[in-house]
């Protein structure tokens, strides 16, 4: 592990490589880290005294600031960075588990070569060879290179990838992963674009709201930034002068957000937009609420029969009227669209209908994320599923000679119907930058493992709020544990051999890149006089943010129309009697957390099940099909089938079954492998009506018992908590 190669040796190796017409890493000596023995400890390391470093969490795309506690050079605890405007010192379960990302026993040490794809027979090669292979392939492929990235990829890496691809005239990277799809990031941003002319993720200041209507937005569990909304929610519940905000949540299944809501309404799946439309209609027709609300609603409300709408949504009309009055009467009412509605056939319509409620509310503390253009920073933009489909089409047509994959796991995350693996067979070289062997790495030829986020540099433009931009800094906090190399440096090394790329990427290494980026940032909340100090403070404080929070730009709604109808679902009612409600697991998220024992072994809050996946069904459904907890069910949709264990719970509608995403890995390390089933296999690859999103919230399923049964790994006593002994 100790890289005892001196710079001279390294250059010699590089020269030897160059002789065969290749180019190896002439990286800057400043990047070399040598493990030091404790007899000569680094200056800041005192035995028994902790040192703290600030960096950015990369367990999900949100980009919370973390501080890492180091004891004797080992990272022992992650905590939220109290200065960081996004998470304000707090951290979620996934963030807390980040250390296992760093110290995972199945991380790769050094590049791997796979002779036959899917064989899982890897041969270790050294880094020079790995980089040379990448370079040669890149030089050969010309513009026929494609890149598929995930939303947790650092923004600087996205910039480097983009520049490299642009230099070889290849199309820009495609950024897509299941996490952002389940969160509806792209669709909601598009809807914001239609309503306000600014296509960015919506953001809300719950602390300033009186009434929050959440349309399936699990903002306390998984949606966008659970930590930021957790902090906001805490303030929302105890506002000044004893005021307490009211939360109403609409969802077919009780999520942890539904549990904490004051009013939970179990609406029919896919009816979020219809509920919003009916609320608008009721406000408009009933002349409800504060002055101006009804007029505003009259301009937006879709024409619909509220009685029929209430029936379709599964809500009594009286309840709907009460809710409409409550929303209209609140001074600061806000409506939040969730991920599930964005994945419905009518996702954009629903999102617009919900945003119309915010327009009606008038002074809703809502807005959209912004990156002030004057920062001049590169920032990832997410692609739609339609973009992924066109990439797959290009691959299938043989137009892609080389596919680069970073921080996403398409082999696991894309529905089979998308045809990703078939198309992959047409790509001569697949390069994965995964730190572990995941499902996609198994189908690639070359693995150049990237370092974990606690060992690498980077930055992330996060917008915790609308208005004030934040650049979160990422820096290595420990000496690398494995012989992995940061992808940024690999790319810069490779670029040196491609003249166009070398011109576009003139940096010695990624640190050089980041230093120049930081130098361009305006004045921050903390003082820094020299450029050197600015750089140091940027890393010390964990990022850059302006001193007084920039006032939110006022959003002016553009004219838009609201239509309200229920989403359509694949499969007919007789063959597939149940709606499938897919949701990202609070702990495993879209599946990337499945590799960590800390997230696998901690019980899910709603079911208290650890290590397993399950199908949530209503007791009435269970009774009808004679299903008990732990019965293995064959869940069939028009697109596929999986086998998963039953979990009977009163927290779901009788016409719906819910399956969390996250389990069912075939790879991704020893803790994830062969555990539960992957709900994505039930999904089709159809697009939503508008916006090109994956219509993942739109299948019906059938249930059948397999006759087999497993023991449920739950913490709760089902008898005690749910069933009772039958005589209470």
């Amino acid at each position, binding site marked *: 592990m100790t890289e005892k190669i001196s710079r001279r040796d390294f250059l010699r190796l590089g020269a030897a490589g160059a002789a065969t017409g290749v180019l190896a890493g002439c990286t800057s000596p400043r990047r070399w880290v040598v493990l030091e023995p404790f007899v000569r400890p680094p200056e800041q390391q005192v035995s*028994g005294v902790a040192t703290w470093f600030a960096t950015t969490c990369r367990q999900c795309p949100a980009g919370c600031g973390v501080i890492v506690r180091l*004891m*004797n050079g080992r*990272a*022992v*605890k992650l*905590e*939220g960075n109290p200065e960081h405007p996004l998470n304000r*010192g*707090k*951290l*979620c*379960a996934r963030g*807390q*588990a980040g*250390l*296992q990302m760093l*110290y*995972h*026993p199945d991380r790769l040490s050094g590049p791997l070569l796979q002779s036959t794809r899917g064989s899982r027979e890897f041969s270790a090669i050294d880094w020079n060879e790995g980089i040379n292979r990448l370079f040669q392939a890149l030089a050969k492929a010309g513009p026929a290179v494609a890149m598929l990235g995930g939303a947790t990829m650092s923004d600087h890496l996205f910039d480097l990838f983009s520049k490299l691809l642009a230099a070889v005239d290849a199309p820009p990277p495609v950024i897509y992963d299941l996490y952002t799809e389940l969160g509806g990031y792209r669709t909601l941003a598009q809807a914001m674009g239609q309503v306000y002319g600014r296509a960015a993720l919506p953001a809300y200041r719950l602390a300033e709201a009186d009434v929050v209507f959440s349309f399936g937005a699990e903002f*306390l*569990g998984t949606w966008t930034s*659970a*930590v930021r*909304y*957790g*902090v906001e*929610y*805490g303030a929302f*519940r*105890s506002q000044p002068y*004893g*005021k*307490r905000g009211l939360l109403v949540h609409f969802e077919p299944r*009780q999520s942890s*957000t539904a*549990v*904490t809501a004051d009013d*939970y309404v179990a609406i029919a799946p896919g009816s979020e937009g219809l509920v919003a439309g009916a609320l608008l209609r009721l406000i408009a027709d009933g002349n409800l609420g504060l002055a101006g609300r009804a007029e505003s609603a009259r301009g937006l409300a879709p024409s619909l029969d509220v009685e029929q709408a209430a029936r379709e949504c599964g809500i009594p009309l009286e309840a709907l009227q009460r809710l409409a009055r409550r929303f209209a009467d609140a001074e600061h009412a806000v409506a939040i669209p969730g991920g599930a509605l964005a994945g419905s056939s009518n996702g954009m319509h629903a999102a617009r209908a919900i945003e119309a409620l915010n327009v009606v509310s008038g002074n809703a503390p809502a807005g959209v994320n912004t990156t002030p253009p004057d920062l001049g920073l590169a920032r990832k933009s997410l692609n739609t599923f339609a973009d992924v489909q066109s990439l797959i089409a290009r691959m299938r047509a043989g137009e892609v000679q080389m596919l680069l994959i970073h921080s996403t796991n398409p082999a696991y995350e894309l529905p089979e119907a998308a045809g990703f693996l078939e198309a992959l067979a047409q790509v001569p070289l697949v390069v994965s930058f995964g730190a572990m062997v995941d499902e996609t790495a198994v189908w690639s030829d070359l693995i150049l493992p990237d370092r974990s986020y606690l060992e690498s540099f980077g930055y992330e433009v996060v917008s915790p709020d609308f208005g004030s931009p934040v650049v979160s800094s990422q820096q290595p906090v420990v000496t690398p*544990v494995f012989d992995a190399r940061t992808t940024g440096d690999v790319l810069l090394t490779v670029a040196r051999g491609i003249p166009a790329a070398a011109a576009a990427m003139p940096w010695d290494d990624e640190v050089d890149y980041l230093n120049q980026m930081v130098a361009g940032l305006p004045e921050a909340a903390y003082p820094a006089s020299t450029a050197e100090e600015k750089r140091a403070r940027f890393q010390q404080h964990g990022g850059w943010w302006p001193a007084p929070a920039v006032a939110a730009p006022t959003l002016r709604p553009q004219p838009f129309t609201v239509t309200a109808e229920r989403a359509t679902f694949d499969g007919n009612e007789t063959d597939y009697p149940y709606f499938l409600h897919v949701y990202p697991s*609070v*702990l495993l998220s879209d599946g990337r957390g499945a590799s960590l024992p*800390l*997230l696998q*072994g*901690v*019980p899910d*809050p*709603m079911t*208290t099940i*650890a*290590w397993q996946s399950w199908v949530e069904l209503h007791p009435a459904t269970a009774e009808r099909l004679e299903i008990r907890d732990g019965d293995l069910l064959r869940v069939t949709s028009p697109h596929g089938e999986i086998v998963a264990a039953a979990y009977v719970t*009163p*927290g779901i509608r*009788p016409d719906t079954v819910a399956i969390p995403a996250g389990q069912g890995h075939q790879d991704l390390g020893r803790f994830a492998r062969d555990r539960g089933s992957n709900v994505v296999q039930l999904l089709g690859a159809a697009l939503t009506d508008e916006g090109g999103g994956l219509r993942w919230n739109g299948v019906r399923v059938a249930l059948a018992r397999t006759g087999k049964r497993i023991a449920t*790994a739950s*913490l*709760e006593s089902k008898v005690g*908590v*749910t069933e009772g002994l039958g005589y209470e």
Partner: protein
Amino acid sequence: MSELETRLLDRGQSAAAAPKTELPSHKWTMLIDLDKCTGCNACVVACHVENNVPIRSEREVIRGHGQHWIRIERYWEGEGDAQRATFLPMLCQQCSNAPCEPVCPVYASVHSERENLNLQVYNRCVGTRFCGNNCPYRARQFNWFAPQFEGPITEMLNPDVTVRSGGVMEKCTFCVQRIRRVEEDALVEGRPLRDGEMVPACAQTCPTSAIVFGDRSDPQSQVAQRLGGQREFQVLEHLGTAPNVYYLKAGGSDGGAG
């Protein structure tokens, strides 16, 4: 006064200030506002990491050996389709009148009057599990097997906290290692502890700040200020265990009506 404390005092500014012989006593108290608990499990994971609590395998969880110092208990309220889940974070209640203490034959479960803590001395524990049985909250966790940390995961073990061996009972300590640290820091700096200086891992990470921790004997502390409201209750209060973990009932803010 321990030797460490003596040495810390010796490092103090003046000799005149030194003869402070005892560490100040505290009434460490935790307040959990159920109105803010979202069941997100951040506290659970933070506790595992901070206190080296092992993660048990699927097989072990099935056999009822799941091991968490703090867990989110999910209950159902109401009838039929109106049933709503509620969360109750459950951890060692640090009872002032702890049922686990008198039953331990070897004094592995002992009380610290000074800190208002119920301590577990791991290396004294012989594993009779009497304390575990007698805990009405079932907050005590037994190491049914020796813990396993695979590969480099051992690197992330907190050196301030023992890794317990198999056959030993363990439980939430209110992050006593953090209490020690801030106490010693304050001692060296010759000042009293500040409210909010001592934060256990769970309260530190709690996104909604549902968990509040502090010294009840300091009337200015946040816990002392928030105690005594209408929403306050203790779990299984009728048993007379006098817990030092207080809960605030969901459905109302501090100032408003319950």
